[in-house]
């Protein structure tokens, strides 16, 4: 036994299987605790330029064979009866031969083929050197973000990602691939966000996360704790991450079409305290009309009309000599009135052969009206007719806060619109450095839907490409996930500096993108357990297998069981539930009394305003809204009383 410990193997090389600077072979005892993914250290035996070479490698393939020349010899040896195999007096000589890929050679120059030598199991310190983590784990410039624990043969070593390469500016973005149903992708992101929040270096600034919950209840309970096993707690402790749910989480969800209950799986009354309605008006939507309008549908002429509306009509006092009324378009309702006026006026003028208004043909106007008014229908609940806006707190983002936008139950168009607008706003604010934080992680699942490898170029895909290629300079970092990486646009996944792989589908592994992995590594990927990941990171010259703890947040499925979704309720109950999140003293009877004399629309508007403004005195604010509404209604209704009909002149009864 040398001072380096007990060797577990010896490097071998033959003419048919030579060693190279990037690959070597070694054999071990049959009971050696190594396998695919194990990191080993090789000690050379001849000094090069005064330095004894040390090589670090990771096992990527393994072979086992005996001294049998052909299987037939074994058949003969057992007289063709497999049952007799157990009686063999001696076991055949057998070899465990492994192929390893070089992670690092020291000294790094001259780069030579791996020499013969003893092979040792890598220690924790070896793993740090092998993966070049020593460069970013120095106490004076530590930028390590724990991603999991590497385990092999008794060695247990935390694996860190470099924040400079995860969050920029050197490289950025993270992509996760894995089959559905094993909770790997969501769990990994939840864990990694916890780790990121705990370890993001102070010198790099502040960080927040915007997560799009695109399916199920996966991200709906990030602020609620889960029950962790001892092994998970040990991992949390080893990796220096508190085993706690996220302390600061805000949920955003649009209303359902009824406008009174939130369209989210987190609608249970007990959880509404940090659920904020997401509603946008015409201005917000028109900015991203491109997302919703089909390019084939909206040609250059329609585009020109939409631009005209955005620039000349929206939020301005607009009048036209041909139009009957003056317009100030601030909502879809206003827009509809505007279109009606325009079209009615054109019809009136038809006799004079007028087919256009301000160069826009009547057919184009009708088409744009149709498409735009459709939006408020397709995105009902998100787009408010009254123009009221309740949005993410752009400009006031908080450090270490998670903003979850729940779009799981929305129409695809609405999902696209929300995604496009939120990310664009994040980008705008980060460019101006006024978002409130310096780095934002945007998590998007089902990336193959939003940035598919083929199909037409959509606004969302273009935007994702833009983030992937330029986001790292802004601090806008994309954490994305999908089941089939091969079906995602290659520039999006290609720009992800870090890639995580959970258990993979065999068909997916058969695609060309995985040909760089050895067959054994692919097999391991196809059989990974829950909580295991393969990690690719710019500092790691080869993929590494790690384990990560179960997230400290309540699983979506458990949360959905414990906090069932609220059923659709009557208006008074909906208002009561909403207002009680602002003021717990509000009772259902008070709400009933307050709204009894008012229309549903007015009540909803008052409720939304209260939720949006979050006033100090909720009751007063809520009731004041009615007073103002009543007042304005009474004003508009203040028409002169109808004249009393004059009695007939020849009243035979002489009344």
């Amino acid at each position: 036994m040398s001072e380096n410990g007990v060797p577990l193997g010896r490097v071998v090389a033959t003419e048919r299987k030579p060693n190279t600077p990037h690959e070597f072979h070694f054999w071990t005892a049959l009971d050696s605790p190594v396998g695919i993914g194990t990191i080993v250290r090789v000690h050379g035996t001849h000094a090069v330029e005064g330095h004894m070479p040390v090589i670090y490698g990771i096992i990527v393939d393994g072979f086992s064979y005996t001294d049998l020349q052909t299987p037939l010899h074994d058949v003969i040896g057992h007289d063709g009866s497999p049952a007799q195999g157990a009686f063999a007096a001696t076991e055949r000589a057998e070899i465990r031969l492994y192929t390893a890929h070089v992670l690092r050679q020291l000294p790094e120059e001259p780069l030579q083929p791996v020499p013969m030598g003893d092979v040792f199991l890598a220690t924790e310190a070896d793993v740090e050197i092998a993966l070049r983590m020593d460069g970013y784990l120095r106490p004076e410039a530590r930028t390590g973000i724990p991603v999991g624990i590497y385990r092999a043969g008794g060695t247990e070593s935390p694996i860190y990602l470099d924040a400079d390469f995860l969050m920029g500016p050197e490289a950025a973005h993270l992509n996760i691939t894995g089959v559905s149903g094993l909770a790997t992708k969501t769990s990994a992101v939840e864990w990694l966000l916890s780790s990121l929040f705990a370890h993001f270096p102070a010198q790099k600034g502040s960080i927040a996360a915007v997560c799009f919950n695109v399916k199920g209840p996966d991200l709906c309970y990030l602020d609620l704790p889960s029950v962790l096993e001892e092994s998970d707690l040990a991992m949390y402790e080893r990796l220096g991450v508190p085993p706690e749910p996220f302390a600061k989480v805000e949920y955003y969800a649009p209303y359902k079409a009824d406008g009174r209950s939130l369209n989210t799986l987190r609608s249970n009354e007990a959880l509404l305290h940090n659920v904020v309605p997401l509603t946008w008006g015409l201005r917000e939507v028109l900015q991203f009309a491109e997302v919703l309008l089909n390019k084939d549908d909206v040609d250059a002429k329609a585009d020109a009309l939409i631009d005209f509306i955005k620039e000349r009509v929206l939020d301005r006092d607009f009048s036209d000599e041909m139009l009957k009324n003056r317009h100030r378009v601030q909502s879809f309702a206003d827009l509809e009135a505007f279109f009606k006026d325009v079209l009615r006026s054109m019809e009136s003028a038809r006799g004079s052969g007028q087919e256009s208004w301000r160069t826009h043909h009547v057919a184009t106007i009708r088409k744009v009206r149709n498409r735009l008014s459709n939006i408020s229908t397709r995105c009902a609940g998100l787009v408010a007719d009254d123009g009221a806006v309740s949005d993410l707190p752009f400009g006031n983002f908080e450090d270490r806060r998670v903003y979850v936008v729940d779009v799981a139950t929305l129409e695809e168009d609405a999902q696209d619109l929300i995604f496009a607008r939120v990310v664009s706003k994040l980008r705008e604010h980060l460019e101006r450095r006024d978002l409130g934080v310096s780095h934002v992680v945007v998590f998007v699942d089902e990336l193959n839907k939003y940035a598919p490898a083929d199909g037409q170029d959509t606004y969302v895909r273009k935007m994702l490409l833009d983030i992937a290629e330029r986001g790292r300079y802004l601090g806008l970092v994309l954490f994305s996930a999908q089941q089939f990486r091969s079906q995602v646009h290659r520039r999006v996944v290609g720009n992800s500096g870090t890639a995580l792989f959970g258990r993979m589908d065999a068909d997916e592994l058969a695609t060309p993108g995985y040909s760089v992995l050895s067959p054994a590594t692919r097999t391991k990927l196809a059989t990974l357990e829950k909580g295991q990941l393969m990690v690719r990171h710019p500092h790691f010259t080869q993929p590494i297998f790690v384990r990560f703890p179960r997230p400290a947040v309540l699983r979506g499925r458990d949360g959905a069981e414990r906090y069932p979704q609220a059923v659709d309720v009557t208006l008074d109950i909906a208002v009561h539930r909403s207002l009680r999140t602002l003021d717990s003293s509000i009772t259902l009877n008070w709400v009933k009394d307050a709204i009894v004399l008012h229309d549903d629309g007015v009540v909803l508007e008052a409720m939304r305003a209260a939720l949006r403004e979050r006033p100090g005195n909720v009751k007063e604010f809520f009731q004041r809204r009615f007073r103002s509404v009543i007042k304005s209604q009474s004003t508009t209704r203040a028409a002169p009383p109808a004249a009393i009909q004059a009695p007939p002149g020849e009243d035979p009864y002489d009344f």
Partner: protein
Amino acid sequence: MALERPRTVQSSIVEAGPYCRQVSGEPVVAFRAFLDGIQRTRVLGYLNGIPLIYGTIAAVVRARIDRKLVTWRSPLIERRLYVPERALPAYALDALRNHFDITDTAADSDGAVERHPIGLMERAVPLVQTDRSRLEKHLADAWCADETEPVLVDGGISGSERAAKSGLAVGAIKTHRTLYLDGDALSAVLAMPAGNRSAAFRISSARSPVVSWYLRLRDAGGHDPMWGLLRVEIAESNSLSARADEVSRWLLAERTPLALPDGRWDRMTYGVRGCEEYLRAIL
């Protein structure tokens, strides 16, 4: 190398009954170790036309632990030069002695020294074999002195007095240039089926007398009559029949795994092949 002339010898049969008999009982795994040696020769060069023959000899005991073979103690390895000393100039012999252990291939000839290079090579081979046997004997003696369980020796055990008298050493001879039975007994042996053995006979001509018998490991159908045939040597025993059956059962248990791809696999046990493979790997 001149091969030994094939011959038959009528040994004295010391076991009553038929010439051949079925080995009683089921095969039993009992050998704790296997002993074998190898030799290699090559010509290093020629001096005055005399080949300088470099011989490497080695022997090893491979012990069986948990059905796996591991080296018992250390293998014995020697490297020697085999030359006719008298045929070499004195200065050359002195120079060679500085680098090699030397065995004189002409030590047993009083007259003129053989000068034919091929003849000299043929004279060296048995000397190399003798040296190999010496190493094997050394290991067999050591095993019998220090261990308590049986060892299967590739070849005869009569060369070692200690082994030939120990109940631990069993010799298995694969070559049959000399057949120790003749007449009907030989006919019966050559025709016996797998799992049968001959009646035991004594070999007194050897340095140390031993008891021997033939054992058919595999049916020879389609092969020559000596295919699958072993000759076994053990020390004298008071209950000879029982002992012969017992050792035969041990040997029958060694029929698997096969020693393929070795050409002698029909008679060779896997443990013995393991010794040879080990020595080939380290030499």
